[in-house]
């Protein structure tokens, strides 16, 4: 079942002679239950792709549809609501609010989105699975990089999103933690029936992906052969 559809996306920055064509005719589909990896070097356009997929930026041309609804036609308020209700973001840094404990990170979300979040019991199960159930009264500053990233993943899943968008979730993690995060994202995609899209330049995540896309100079190609390499 298609959850996110990007059709003929182009994105330009600047005008005239300084105009840069960042994304070129991108066509991309994400389905529930699948982990999609978008791999590319720095400056290839993968972050721009992620922000357009998440409704944070509008494409210069093309269409983004979330569960069949055009993002272009939404007001800013509707886009805020869409991101809150349907998308979970896992970012590279500044993921967690430093002055809130792990437990309070979820409370903050609950204060804004009062319904259709994970139940307390489901959250406990999730935290246990992520091995962070004992960290609920700790502040982000008291956690390791891996623990912070796992809390960020839990927070992204707390609102029961249809899509999880992750930006370099394994940056600054050691190999052991990369494997751990890869497994978590893969399992969550399948068990929570969520479409997970990860943009990264970390090839160690390839083995966990259902689909691997390569992005280079703004052009995206499906390259599932990378999984066999």
């Amino acid at each position, binding site marked *: 079942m298609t959850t996110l559809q990007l059709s003929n996306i182009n994105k330009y920055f600047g005008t005239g002679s300084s105009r840069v064509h960042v994304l070129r005719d991108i066509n991309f589909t994400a389905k529930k239950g699948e982990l999609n990896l978008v791999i590319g070097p720095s400056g290839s356009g993968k*972050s*721009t792709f*992620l*922000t357009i997929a*998440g409704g*944070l*930026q509008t494409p210069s041309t093309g269409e983004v549809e979330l569960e069949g609804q055009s993002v272009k036609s939404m007001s800013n*308020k509707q886009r*805020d*609501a*869409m*991101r*809150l*209700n349907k*998308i*979970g*973001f896992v*970012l590279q*840094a*500044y*993921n967690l*609010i*430093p*002055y*809130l404990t792990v437990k*309070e990170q979820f*409370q*903050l*979300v609950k*204060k*804004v*989105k009062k319904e259709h979040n994970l139940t307390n019991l489901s959250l406990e199960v999730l935290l246990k699975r992520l091995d962070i159930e004992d960290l609920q009264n700790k*502040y982000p500053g008291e956690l390791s990089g891996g623990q912070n990233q796992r809390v960020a993943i839990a927070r992204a899943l707390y609102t029961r999103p249809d899509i999880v968008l992750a*930006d370099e979730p394994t940056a600054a993690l050691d190999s052991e933690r990369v494997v751990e995060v890869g497994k978590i994202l893969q399992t969550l995609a399948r068990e929570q029936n969520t479409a997970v899209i990860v943009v990264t330049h970390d090839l160690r995540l390839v083995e966990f992906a259902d689909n691997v896309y390569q992005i280079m100079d703004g052009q995206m190609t499906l390259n599932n052969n990378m999984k066999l390499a």
Partner: protein
Amino acid sequence: MFLSFKEIKKEKVRYGLIIGMIVLICYLIFILTSLAMGLAQQNTDAIDSWNVKSIVLDKDSNTSMAQSLITKDEVKKTNVTSDKAYIGQAAVVTKKSGRTNESAQFLGLKSNQFVAKNLTLTSGHKVEKANQVVVDDKFETDGYKLGDKIKFNSLDKEYKIVGFTKNAKLNIAPVIYGNISEWQNLKNINGQFVASAIVSKKANFKTDNKQLKTYSKSAFISKLPGYSAQNSTFTFMIAFLMIISLIVIAVFLYILTIQKIQNYAVLRAQGIPAKTLVGATISQSITLVVSGLLIGIILTAITALVMPAAVPMSFNIPILSEVGIGLVLTGLLGSLIPIRIILHVDPVSVIGG
């Protein structure tokens, strides 16, 4: 509220220092306001106690009661009814061996007119004879007692203190109420001068004589020597402190917001509405100012208890409340710049792109 309280709870030292700064500003503003009101009150205490609305002076006296002399001829056609009274003013220095000399204002009254009749005493009795005086309680604070005999300037005549009265100060100096005939003696003027001024309970009191001019109470007070200059100085000091507090609060909130901009960008990316973040900033600003204000009020109250009576301070709750509300509004104003920053946070900035 949630975000602001949690942040203050986590960053106790940082926010403690900010609140400390606001406490000092509030305390300074309260003390200065009280001092300004205390001094202003000591200029006008006696006038306020008469409950008059207008005052008639010689038109060439430059609105100064001390410089004004009203002759019998000038008031010939004026009917001094029960709501009007003569007052004769003379600056004197009181002397009594073993006591400090006091610079004071002698105010001569007619015992059958309303100012003398309405005089409220804290002890003793009203003036009944020419050599008797009722004095401000500053004399009592300085060791004078009922029955003490005092002299004025280099004159030999003695006057007996028969009563003490509260809040009887004119131009900061304590007032001595006596008989108007003694004012004539002190001024060394003959019987053709009846008083320095005629005060009235009516605002529209006018005399027929062209040499006399009627002033409203506020116009008369504003012309008291040094009164307006002193009040303006305090008003400017308090206004500048308000502006300084506005800048301090705005700068602190600006710095704090800039430090949190990446977190706010993440929250915006996650769909947290800008109004939630704006609400957090406003409630944080109010929490900081109100906390500072409350501690400032407590410190001011403690200061009021230990302040010596010689320091002219007046703790007027309604006016201090207005100052407090002004400070809270200042805090709200100070949060406007950070709010503008929050409204323009770009969630893309934390993802790149």
